[in-house]
């Protein structure tokens, strides 16, 4: 398959997206059914051609076609097959093609699963997604073509960066992109609603599962990235507030606010303007992230090859999409009617507070990430904003969020009696404070105030979840009642919420405990020497040279004992990859539910002696367990029956009624 085919397919894909972006949209405004009907075939056509293009690139890697410049830079004959495939998205051009593929995939999905919606609305949504596609496909074709050729053809490829030759990191970008692209669905839907001037509960109900699924993918992607950094980078760190990490975290925060806001708009018709704005914000942040990673504007360990020319292209694209959408918002949002009223204390207020907090956190992360740029641009000197600042701010604001999280699920919609809420939460408050104080006292682990705070917040969350369950089961007695509840409508949402909030508590414990109680030791060891750490004995048994499929490794052996019993044998490695020759460290990890034991090799100090770093990391796995629980919760909520019911024809409300009610409500 010649690479030219891939390039040509990409051009055809762009043509399809041009059709998709224009005809259905114009048709929906002028009410031309023929043009509206073009949406679905155009979406399919776009996907078809982009998929071909992607397949051609994959094939080029598998067949070691080094006449393609991108393959020559990132591929290698000795690369294992799975990494030949993941090398496709290992650098700038290919990862953009993956973006475009996933975007066209979601577009097709939207064109299929929309039976409850009027066709002109679907047409607008698909058109907006087509516009985004135009941006990415033209960016690919005009500035970052993965099918550019190189002559003379090199005999061997530059090899995929050894850091990326790992399963976790192979899967991490696709997960993230599924999330980013998924946000474009909510975005497109918000735009379509703004254009049509009809923002109602139906819009929220439709957007919600799509947004939730995208949010789940984003959660998984971020969790994977963090876990990968931990086991791959060799010094046990799992989050660095690196600009590119922040670029993925900000859309996640905005999306979290969005799914909560959608819940309110769906149930109560309130927050419509906030929800629309959040939908625009979530995707805008995704696009901003793309800009930050690929333009060279910020220094980051993650950034792709920086090129200001490409940066300019993306910036113009950003201005068109984000600027355009916000301008549309400024024009149309005032016409959106306000929804149901609510009292000072109500679930609505708490959710609004929750969302505002999430937006504030997003805002200060953006501030910190861009501050060096802003300061230098204004001539205020060159400053650096790093890990300590972000962590400090985050730790100050997150407890506020958790406090509200405990109150929200227990509050009624519209009006909650403060006294009643206080009475319910009284026990929870006492329990949390007691647990926190106990943890902070020197009774456990020499006492630690942060651990105490984390326990306080976790117990607070857990107690409120238990209280909420108890409230729910008041009318569903016994085991049978509980089981029946699981199958009821709306239970997916509820149990999803429980699981996700539980995940947050687990995450908070993991983060705090590992950062407060971890023990680390840098030490020089001779073969046969033992050392004590964290209640364990470590015996170093020397290092031997071992070949790998495309690297040579120095492999150490360390036996770990606890109280005389051997607990683990760890093999940290220092690898020299044959092509890129950058030394990579593979840590030796014994994973456990309550602790990890982590060893990494340093340098050979002569005479068989090596410098080693030993870690004892309690509860570190809870960080990613929390992330997984959050993702599972989201999945549960997205698959709630009530979303699926609308898909079945015949149970959707009669068109005449919806039309009348709709025209009434949009006043």
């Amino acid at each position, binding site marked *: 398959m010649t690479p030219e085919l891939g390039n040509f397919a990409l051009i055809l894909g762009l043509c399809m997206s041009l059709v998709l972006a224009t005809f259905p949209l114009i048709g929906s405004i002028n009410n031309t059914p023929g043009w509206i009907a073009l949406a679905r075939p155009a979406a399919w056509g776009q996907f078809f051609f982009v998929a071909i293009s992607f397949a051609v690139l994959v094939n080029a890697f598998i067949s070691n076609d080094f006449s393609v410049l991108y393959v020559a830079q990132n591929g290698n004959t000795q690369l294992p097959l799975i990494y030949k495939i993941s090398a496709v998205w290992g650098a700038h051009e290919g990862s953009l093609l993956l973006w475009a593929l996933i975007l066209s995939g979601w577009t097709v999905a939207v064109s299929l699963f929309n039976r409850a919606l009027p066709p002109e609305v679907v047409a607008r949504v698909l058109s907006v997604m087509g516009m985004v596609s135009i941006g990415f496909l033209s960016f690919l074709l005009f500035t970052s073509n993965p099918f550019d050729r190189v002559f003379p053809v090199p005999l061997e490829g530059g090899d995929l960066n050894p850091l990326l030759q790992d399963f976790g990191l192979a899967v991490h970008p696709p997960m993230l992109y599924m999330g980013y692209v998924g946000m474009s669905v909510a975005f497109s839907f918000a735009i379509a609603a703004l254009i049509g001037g009809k923002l109602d509960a139906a819009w929220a109900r439709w957007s919600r599962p799509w947004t939730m699924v995208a949010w789940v993918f984003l959660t998984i992607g971020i969790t994977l990235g963090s876990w990968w950094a931990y086991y791959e980078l060799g010094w046990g760190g799992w989050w660095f507030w690196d600009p590119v990490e922040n670029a993925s975290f900000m859309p996640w925060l905005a999306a979290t606010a969005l799914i909560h806001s959608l819940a309110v708009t769906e149930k109560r018709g309130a927050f419509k303007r906030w929800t629309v704005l959040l939908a625009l914000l979530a995707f805008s942040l995704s696009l901003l992230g793309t800009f930050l990673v690929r333009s060279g504007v910020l220094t980051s*360990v993650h950034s792709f090859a920086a090129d200001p020319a490409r940066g300019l292209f993306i910036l113009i694209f950003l201005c068109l999409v984000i600027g355009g959408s916000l301008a549309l918002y400024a024009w149309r949002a005032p016409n959106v009617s306000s929804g149901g*009223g*609510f*009292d000072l204390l109500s679930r609505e207020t708490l959710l609004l507070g929750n969302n505002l907090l999430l937006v504030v956190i997003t805002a200060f992360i953006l501030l910190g990430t861009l501050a060096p740029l802003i300061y230098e641009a204004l001539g205020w000197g060159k400053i*650096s904003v790093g890990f300590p*600042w972000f962590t400090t701010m985050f730790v100050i604001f997150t407890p506020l969020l958790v406090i509200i999280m405990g109150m929200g699920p227990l509050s009624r919609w519209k009006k909650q009696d403060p006294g009643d809420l206080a009475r319910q939460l009284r026990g929870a408050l006492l329990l949390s404070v007691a647990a926190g104080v106990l943890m902070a006292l020197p009774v456990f682990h020499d006492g630690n105030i942060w651990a105490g705070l984390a326990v306080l917040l976790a117990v607070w969350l857990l107690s409120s979840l238990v209280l909420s369950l108890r409230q729910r089961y008041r009318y569903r007695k016994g085991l049978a009642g509980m089981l029946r509840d699981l199958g009821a409508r709306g239970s997916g949402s509820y149990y999803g919420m429980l699981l996700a909030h539980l995940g947050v508590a687990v995450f908070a414990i993991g983060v705090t405990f590992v950062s407060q109680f971890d023990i680390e030791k840098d030490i020089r060891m001779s073969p046969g020497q033992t050392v004590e750490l964290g209640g364990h004995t470590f015996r170093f048994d020397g290092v031997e040279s071992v070949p790998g499929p495309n690297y040579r490794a120095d492999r150490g052996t360390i036996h770990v004992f606890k109280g005389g019993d051997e607990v683990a044998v760890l093999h940290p490695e220092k690898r020299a990859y044959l092509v890129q020759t950058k030394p990579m*460290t593979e840590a030796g990890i014994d994973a456990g539910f309550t602790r990890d034991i982590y060893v990494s090799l340093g340098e050979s100090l002569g005479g068989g002696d090596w410098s080693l770093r030993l870690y004892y990391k309690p509860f570190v796995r809870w960080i990613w367990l929390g992330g997984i629980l959050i993702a599972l919760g989201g999945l549960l909520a997205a698959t709630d029956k009530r979303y699926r019911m609308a898909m079945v024809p015949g149970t959707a409300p009669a068109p005449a009624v919806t039309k009348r009610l709709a025209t009434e409500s949009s006043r």
Partner: protein
Amino acid sequence: MMKIFVSVFALCLLLGSGTVSAGVTLEAFKFDTPAEELHFKQLIEELRCLVCQNQSLADSDAELAHDLRAEVYEMVQAGKSDDEVVEFLVARYGDFVLYNPPVKPSTYLIWFGPFALLLLAIFLLVRAVGRQKRTAVTDITPEERARLDAALGTTPSQQDKQR
């Protein structure tokens, strides 16, 4: 031509700076007490590796980072205070060497910005709720009830049953 120079210069920085991340930084610095070691670690965590991409002196494997760590170690052993060490480095490299921005009037935006945003958020929250209270919708009016009946094609008694 310029592009070549720039990229080659960058290469020089990299060559002089070791590899991109993935390095474990282990030194055989000797400390008298574990508290001293901890203090040293905390100090170098607050300083930035200038040639790396967003790493502290504690995490970086770059050659300049090695040199700077050695410099900091010597100063700490000589009894210099944290402030003196920081001042020494800032005099030579500017505020950029501080991993966290210093707290001075020009950086108030960074240090107090988040709290200003929080106050703004609280203000917006109170105003949004307050406005709701003013236009509070209680229950549907009889006219609205009649319109609902007309739309659904139900009589008032049927409607009540469904509620």
